[in-house]
């Protein structure tokens, strides 16, 4: 038996070559050579929408030799929020998690900075809106990649026939499918008159004043239209200002034209209001219209999604983005980033938007004119203005521009809708403002 002796030079060369191969080609060895990746996606309410995400992830996984597991976690009962809290505490769990609105910021210290991949994504897809930056960035660090899945604008969804008949407003002419809005006269004043007319006609607007997000989002957009902020961007209290007083006065008038039970409304109430045919307008993404398409087609074919009315300080619409964030305890961050790049390709985004029937909104300016919004119906073009294709309105979130950690408290505690209700129920303006100021002071604790 002869045995070849390994020289020192041969040993060093072999070691160097295998190290180089390992470093330079992380995803090219056998099946699942690039390790594992677990993902916590938001469980979409549109049947079949999850499949588009699964297919895209599997396609990427097969190419990159990564073993992936996907959990679809619903937002019903705040299950996704509970999972986020548990994973943040345990410092263990999924590698990638779909963070709704405020949760990227509230877990900022535990999230991987994805600025390195956001640069190329923005270069390809276009700039993101201000709300995405406000919620997704902290100290020049990107806390996640904006996810189109679950992101939405909660604009007005009007009944074409009822608005024309009772308020004399042709919403299709104001927001024509395929062309720019002609909505200069669509102001808060016009909106209030329309609310009054529809109330008199027995088909009041369905705008809730409960403590859930739909209610808070509408109040947030209207407050911002008056320039009303409870806490400014620097963290100063700005409750006792004329802008806040004007917003409260407006809401007081508006509430008297709304259904009497709006204080108890949750996020399902406005949907039911529209689908049952009892109201002329609600503020919601097209989910209510989609349900009407199935359950009340005669209502659906009269629905038109469009922009918010303009206030003294501009036209604001509530925008609620999701972010795909990578936990800093993830053991496969490079693979996670590679997947997020793949999911942010225009073709992938279009596939996911199509699967959601146009409900999901990409955050990028080059992706607001996809075919699905032009073609969805009935009536055809009903979603054309849903993604804000002409940047006609400023996309915002309630309680902004307060520092996100304070704003999240204002949002979660529904301070805005509570103020409106208190004032409407007869509390003196200054007392309501003092109450809100006390609440905001409490939210500022560090």
């Amino acid at each position, binding site marked *: 038996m002869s045995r070849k002796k390994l020289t020192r030079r041969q040993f060093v060369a072999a070691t160097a070559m295998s190290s180089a191969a390992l470093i330079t080609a992380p995803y090219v060895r056998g099946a699942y050579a690039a390790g594992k990746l677990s993902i916590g996606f938001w469980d979409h309410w549109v049947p079949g929408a999850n499949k588009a995400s699964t297919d895209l992830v599997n396609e990427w996984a097969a190419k990159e030799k990564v073993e992936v597991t996907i959990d679809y976690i619903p937002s019903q009962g705040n299950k996704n929020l509970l999972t986020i809290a548990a994973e943040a*505490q345990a410092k263990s769990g999924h590698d990638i998690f779909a963070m709704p609105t405020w*949760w990227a910021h509230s*877990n900022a210290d535990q999230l991987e900075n994805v600025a390195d991949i956001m640069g190329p994504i923005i270069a390809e897809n276009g700039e993101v809106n201000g709300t995405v930056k406000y919620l997704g960035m902290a100290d020049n660090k990107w806390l996640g990649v904006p996810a189109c899945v679950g992101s939405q604008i909660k604009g007005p969804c009007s009944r074409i026939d009822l608005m024309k008949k009772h308020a004399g407003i042709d919403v299709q002419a104001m927001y024509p499918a395929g062309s720019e809005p002609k909505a200069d006269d669509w102001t808060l004043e016009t909106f209030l008159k329309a609310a009054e007319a529809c109330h008199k006609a027995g088909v009041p607007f369905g705008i809730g004043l409960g403590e859930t997000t739909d209610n808070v989002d509408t109040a947030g957009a209207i407050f911002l239209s008056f320039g009303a902020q409870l806490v400014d961007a620097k963290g100063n209290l700005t409750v006792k200002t004329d802008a806040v007083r004007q917003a409260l006065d407006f809401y007081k008038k508006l509430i008297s034209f709304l259904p009497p*039970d*709006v*204080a*108890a409304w949750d996020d399902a109430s406005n949907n039911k209001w529209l689908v049952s045919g009892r109201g002329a307008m609600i503020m919601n993404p097209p989910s209510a219209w989609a349900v009407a398409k199935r359950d009340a087609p005669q209502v659906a074919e009269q629905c038109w999604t469009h922009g918010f009315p303009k206030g003294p300080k501009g036209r604001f619409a509530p925008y609620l983005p999701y972010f795909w964030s990578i936990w800093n305890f993830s053991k496969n961050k490079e693979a996670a980033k590679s997947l997020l790049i793949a999911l942010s390709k225009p073709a992938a985004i279009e596939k996911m938007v199509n699967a959601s029937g146009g409900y999901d909104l990409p955050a990028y300016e080059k992706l607001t004119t996809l075919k699905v919004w032009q073609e969805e119906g009935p009536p055809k073009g009903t979603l054309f203005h849903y993604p804000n294709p002409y940047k006609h309105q400023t996309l915002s979130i309630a309680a902004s521009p307060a520092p996100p950690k304070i704003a*999240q408290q204002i949002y979660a505690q529904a301070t805005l809708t*509570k103020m409106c209700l208190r004032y409407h129920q007869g509390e003196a303006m200054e007392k309501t403002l003092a109450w809100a100021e006390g609440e905001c002071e409490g939210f500022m604790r560090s």
Partner: protein
Amino acid sequence: MADVALQPNTVGAAQPVRKRSGLQKALKRKSTAAFLMTLPLIILIALLVLYPAFYSLHLATLNKSMQRFVGLGNFEFLFKRDTFWLVVKQSCIFAITAVLFKALIGFIVAHFVHNIPAKGQRKWRGMLLVPWVIPPAMSTLAWLWLFDPSYSAFNYTLSFFGIGPIPWTGDADWARFSVILVNVWYGAPFFMIMYLASLKSVPEQLYEAAAIDGANWWQRIWYVTLPMMRNIIAITTLFSLIVTFANFDIVRILTAGGPLDHTHIFATWAFRIGIEGSDIPLGASVSLFMVPILAVAAIFILRDVNKRGNEA
């Protein structure tokens, strides 16, 4: 001398025997066997109850970003908040009113069922237990539809009598009434079944003796039934008080704490602050606030039970 010389060996040889016999004796003792048999449960409770309890105590001492120890700072902060005292007040109203009504209704219904002939009693017992065996999250959803602000089945029915519409969940007082009503509906069967079991154990001779002494219906209840049921009433009340104070699902589903925070109780407000508001330390502090209240209640009630036990 010989004794002294032999002593170390004797001790050395006798010790293992004594040890072994001690262990055998310990193992033979009923209490040891009982302890060993309950050990798996004790470990489970330690893992699932004690660890989270101590962890929440730890959380309650941290600042909002959970990076700094603040001692009792979170409680100090809470004590200055009006909403917190509103929640304390509501939790007390909710728990005390609900437990009182559950006990009262349970007591009355238990008497009715007790007086039903044995043949048909089982059916009634089964039917009356239905609210208690349905998962509360499900039954509360049904109640939510009955109370729905716009499509309430109750309001629809009442409209035939020219009454309403009643803002079941939209008005502070009605909303409080609604959450208490659902809690009573859900919890009364538990009281009923406990009281029924207790009623069945009251010796018939006592009633016969009372009847011979000329006691009327009320006197029989006051001097025979109630004293015989005292321990069960006390333990059931304590148990229910703890569970009702810690209630979450009914309020969360029915009103989510609204309108204007007027139905929030500790658990729902803690969830709002801790999970929805991402202020976990403050949420933990809110949920821990009820521990001393319940501990004091438990001490008083159980001490009383003990006293009565000794008297007996």
